[in-house]
């Protein structure tokens, strides 16, 4: 148990050292969602109608939080697939450390970066006029839902990266994240889309979190219930945690 904690910490610390070594890269990663936020808030925002009325920026921010969590999939994929491609994963596997430590180290590091990323975006959101209206309790619950989504996507990312085995597939993941994000309630309400597309968007796990957090923050537009935003991440975890662990242990 002690060895597990110590090894997990060593591997988390590795990511912290990477950040310290490459602060510019870290800053770019944090500011990219801010750029998207500003684009949608000020360039497209004027043309957007929020169903039922309300400020588009108030509608947009919960979606942007979700999008930032989805972008995390790319950084998880990149980190894990780079290690696998370079033989670093193999080196770990020939050392007396458990699979659990390696995967815990990765997830703690990625969750730290998710918390920082979310904090930055909440700050910029407040600057462009977004507010939460239902008190700190509901706001914290919304943050919890967002981090749950990130945590679920993290394990999906680990599994995907171990299957891909090399970072060259990153482009494909990046290309997939965008349609996944647009085909949801992140930027626009599904009721404004053609019927069948709207139905797909409604069922997108990203929509579940976006809608539920909108409701909890008291923001206008396409709201939704709490339970799908918990059920989706749970389902993803139930599927991908065992798959990722198995894949790590039996890499060929």
């Amino acid at each position, binding site marked *: 148990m002690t*060895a597990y904690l*110590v*090894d997990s910490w*060593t*591997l988390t*610390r*590795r990511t912290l*050292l*990477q950040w310290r*070594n*490459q602060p510019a890269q870290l800053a770019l990663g944090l500011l990219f969602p801010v750029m998207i936020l500003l684009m949608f808030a000020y360039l497209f925002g004027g043309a957007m109608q929020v169903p039922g009325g309300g400020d588009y920026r108030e509608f947009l921010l919960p979606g942007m939080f979700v999008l930032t969590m989805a972008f995390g999939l790319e950084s998880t994929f990149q980190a894990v697939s780079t*290690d696998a491609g*370079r*033989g*670093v994963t*193999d*080196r*770990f*596997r*020939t*050392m*007396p*450390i458990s699979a659990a430590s390696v995967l815990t180290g990765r997830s703690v590091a990625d969750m730290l970066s998710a918390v920082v990323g979310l904090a930055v975006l909440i700050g910029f959101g407040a600057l462009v006029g977004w507010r939460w209206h239902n008190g700190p309790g509901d706001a914290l619950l919304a943050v919890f839902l967002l981090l749950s989504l990130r945590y679920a996507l993290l394990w999906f990312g680990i599994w995907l990266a171990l299957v891909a085995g090399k970072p060259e597939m990153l482009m494909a993941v990046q290309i997939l994240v965008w349609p996944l994000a647009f085909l949801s309630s992140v930027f626009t309400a599904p009721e404004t889309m053609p019927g069948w597309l709207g139905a797909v968007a409604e069922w997108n796990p990203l929509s579940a979190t976006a809608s539920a957090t909108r409701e909890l923050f008291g923001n206008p537009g396409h709201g939704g219930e709490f339970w799908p935003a918990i059920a989706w991440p749970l389902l993803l975890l139930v599927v991908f945690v065992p798959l990722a662990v198995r894949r790590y242990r039996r*890499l*060929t």
Partner: protein
Amino acid sequence: MRDPAIEASGLTRRFGSTTALDNFDLTVPAGTVHGLLGPNGAGKTTAVRILTTLLRPDAGRARVAGHDVVREADRVRSRIGLVGQQAAVDEQLSGRQNLEMFGRLHHLGATTARRRATELLERFGLAEAADRAAGKYSGGMRRRLDLAAGLLIGPAVLFLDEPTAGLDPRARNEVWQEIRSLVAEGTTVLLTTQYLEEADQLAEGLAVIDRGRVVAAGTADELKGQLGADHLEVVVRDASSLAAAAELLGRIGTGEPQLDPDRRRVSVPVRDRVAALVEAAKTLHGVEDLTLRRPTLDEVFLSLTGAGATGAGVAGRGAA
């Protein structure tokens, strides 16, 4: 007598319908360098992956540093080092940060990990570059860092899977030097390589592997001896006298003369080295060069594996 450092018997591993390793046997005495030779896809890497606990065999058993690689994988892992085909280091961390991280993961403790990192950086000529990101290192430096990471615990058995692939001759020499001094300190090394020169330079024992099986084993000299005779080689001054020279050599030698018109060269296997040399010197005219040579490891390799390894061919010829 000490137990062998590596003892594998009947190792078999299939991937789908291909058999990567087929009843593979290997014994490596402690404190020696053993070379595993074979063309691309012969099963070298599969063998190393099983012996380093990365892959489970479908059949067979193996003990490394006294422990079973499947049932006592953790014990094996605390006694071995692996240096694979690529430099397995974090390019975003400095050389020092890499070694300290791997040291901590080997449970050396933070203080010892730091001290070992400094020692190894010094030893591998990386002290000056210690605090630069490994991604900025040259290929040779990254390789040395990788080798250093494989040595953090002073492993009983070190696996080197094509450790000099893609390195220039100078960097290759640096790596060879390190391997030699390791063995002098008592580490057992299993080296896979396509470069026959590398095997000839470093390894005491050799095993040639082809299609997943060991097809020959012994010292480099034994393997060369197995292939048989020494060769008498003649280079003539004028290409037009090549045919005549070939005919004469055919009478002196024990086999069919081999012609290389581009280099104006004929070679033939001979039994009595000195008599053949004297006879050739007396009877041949217009000779530019006359040499006796043993078969190269390259030729041994080609005759055992039926060629296929172009990289090996080129590298071996350079050495011959």
